[in-house]
């Protein structure tokens, strides 16, 4: 057989892969003896005969589509996944161990760094847990500010999810639109707490800072423009043939399976289980806000996309209500045993100075007890389980990471699907390795 030089030529630009005569448009051309390009013989087998053997392939840990350092060992039969073994832990930093050696307020910076797309939401969740442990009732203004923080962070996280997932599946434009909007939210956060990604926005008993004057105007401006971007993304993706073809029917989890695997967030709601911590086990007075919980029907990647898109719209609704009801008054509680005095007082009055010294050096002490506080993070049910023995440092600080539990179902989801679909399914889980490995 003469060695032919082959090259692939795109015959016609068509997304369907079939031209008007019903022939496939992507015909590889080969050069014949005279050097003329001719269509390749369809009988020519390019792939080596693998007999019936399965092939093992590694995705990650350094692979852009694994969203961090996830390693998936896949056993393939042809292109079909037979078995999937995930390996995690490449980012393990021992957050829980470190937390046992830190005062409660000192743990809050660590919560930024687990699910770093939702850092301000983690701050709020941790503060809620610590306040339960301390038996603190926070002020009304603080509650509304925290609702604003949590919903903004949900929007950020879903924006990053939609952007990166669309890149994984092959759409670049939504990524740019989403990151433009994300930039707007980060500018708002920067104006509020001074930091963009690692916010450390809360303290036990309050917030690090009240919102500055005029900040609400920036937020309402964002709330006015943001739904337009959502509609544009909706128009470009929801009825897009490629998007639909690459997401529908993939990684299906039934309602029973999703519940039994402990999935949460958009993962369980796409499967038709209307479990939302904000509705079922409310916190921060979420029961007084008027919002809907989108629920899917099929439990596939496409439904997860629809659910997350709708959740962003609902977040906008919640933010509008929160802005309308934002009360005046103090943000922090008035308890010198827990909250640092203002700097001016600490430098001028002996009593405040003593409080300041004690709080910084020894830290606030909760009574003996334990609590589990869960919030609806963008990834799912994020919980903090804290055990106190009466000292200023927790005996145990346990993070219930939603993406960890969601990811544990990936072998079940990818089995029987094609290798290319593993990327889409993995993207639909919305994992953050910082949170999974902790």
């Amino acid at each position, binding site marked *: 057989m003469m060695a032919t030089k082959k090259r692939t030529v795109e015959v016609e630009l068509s997304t369907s892969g079939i031209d008007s005569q019903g022939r496939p448009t992507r015909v590889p051309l080969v050069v014949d003896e005279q050097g003329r390009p001719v269509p390749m013989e369809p009988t020519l087998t390019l792939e080596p005969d*693998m007999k019936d053997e399965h092939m093992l392939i590694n995705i990650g840990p350094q692979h852009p589509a694994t969203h961090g350092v996830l390693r998936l060992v896949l056993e393939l039969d042809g292109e079909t996944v037979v078995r999937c073994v995930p390996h995690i832990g490449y980012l393990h930093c021992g957050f829980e161990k470190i937390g046992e050696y830190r005062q409660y307020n000192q743990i809050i910076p660590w919560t930024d760094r687990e699910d770093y797309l939702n850092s301000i939401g983690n701050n709020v969740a941790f503060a809620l847990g610590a306040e339960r442990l301390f038996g603190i009732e926070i002020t009304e203004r603080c509650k509304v500010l925290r609702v604003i923080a949590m919903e903004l962070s949900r929007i950020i996280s879903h924006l990053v999810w939609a952007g990166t997932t669309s890149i994984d599946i092959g759409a670049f434009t939504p990524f740019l639109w989403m990151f433009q909007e994300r930039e707007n939210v980060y500018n708002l956060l920067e104006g509020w707490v001074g930091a963009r990604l690692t916010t450390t926005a809360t303290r036990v008993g309050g917030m690090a800072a009240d919102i500055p004057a005029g900040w609400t105007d920036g937020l309402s401006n964002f709330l006015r423009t943001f739904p337009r971007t959502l509609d544009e993304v909706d128009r470009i993706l929801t009825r897009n043939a490629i998007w639909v073809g690459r997401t529908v029917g993939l990684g299906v989890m039934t309602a029973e399976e999703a519940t039994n695997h402990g999935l949460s967030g958009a993962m369980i709601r796409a499967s038709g289980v209307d*479990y939302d911590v904000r509705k079922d086990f*409310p916190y921060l007075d979420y029961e007084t806000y008027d919002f*809907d919980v989108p629920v899917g029907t099929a439990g596939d990647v496409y439904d997860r996309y629809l659910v997350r898109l709708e959740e962003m719209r609902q977040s906008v609704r919640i933010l509008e209500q929160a802005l309308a009801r934002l009360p005046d008054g103090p943000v922090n509680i008035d308890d010198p045993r827990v909250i640092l005095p203002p700097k001016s007082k600490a430098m001028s009055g002996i009593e405040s100075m003593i409080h300041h010294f004690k709080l910084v050096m020894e830290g606030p002490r909760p009574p003996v007890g*334990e609590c589990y506080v869960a919030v609806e993070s963008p990834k799912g049910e994020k919980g903090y389980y804290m055990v106190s023995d009466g000292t200023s440092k927790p005996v145990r600080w346990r993070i219930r990471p939603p993406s960890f539990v969601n990811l544990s179902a990936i072998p079940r989801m990818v089995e029987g699907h094609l290798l290319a679909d593993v990327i889409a399914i993995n993207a639909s889980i919305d994992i953050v390795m910082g949170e999974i490995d902790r």
Partner: protein
Amino acid sequence: MTNFSAAPVGSRAPRDVVPASPRDVPRLGGPQNPSADALREQFGDVVPRVDVCWGETTVLIDATRVLDVVRWLHDDEGQSYDYLVDITAVEYRDMERPIEMVWHLRSLPYRRFLRLKAEMQKDQPLVVSSIWPVYKGADWLERECWDMFGIRFEGHPDLRRILMWEDYKEGFPLRKDFPLRGRFSRSEQLSQALAANPEARYSMEELSIVDAFQDLPADVRERLAGGEQPGE
């Protein structure tokens, strides 16, 4: 503006009682989860103690009967604890206190939250039965618990380390006798890492690409051996 989204919104079935955010919760006492009494009635001596702390009911159970209790909670229609939230363990700074296993369960139909605990004495082997047969979500959570605390779960299908690497020899990081910085100094850890041969730890199965060459068809093998780069 057309809204294409097809996700049904607000398809939550209306329920009688709207749950409310907890307020003014006492540290100890308060309303108890009704499942605690049901467990006592069903299992008797297996439940030695029930606590309510910050409004959350903790049921202490006998460590040897965990699977029975969990299975009953999951299957009984009056309980329906269909959702496993978390599995973890607690070791106290007081070294005399036993290690506690903690299971957090939710009943989505009844909107209940229950914490199960089992005590394990440190001088006994740390073994407890896996609840993986009831909740598939327990797989990784139990593996993490084994990884961090060294608690063995009987009946778990694949109990390996998950966050630490397979041949991690320093022990169990979240145990209180484990120093914060690990058992070896930074320089020792570095020299160990440099001396390690990471490829030796992979199973040959995972490295089978090395042998795959031999399995290729003869003509492909010939071509590749002749210097042709694959993928050109």
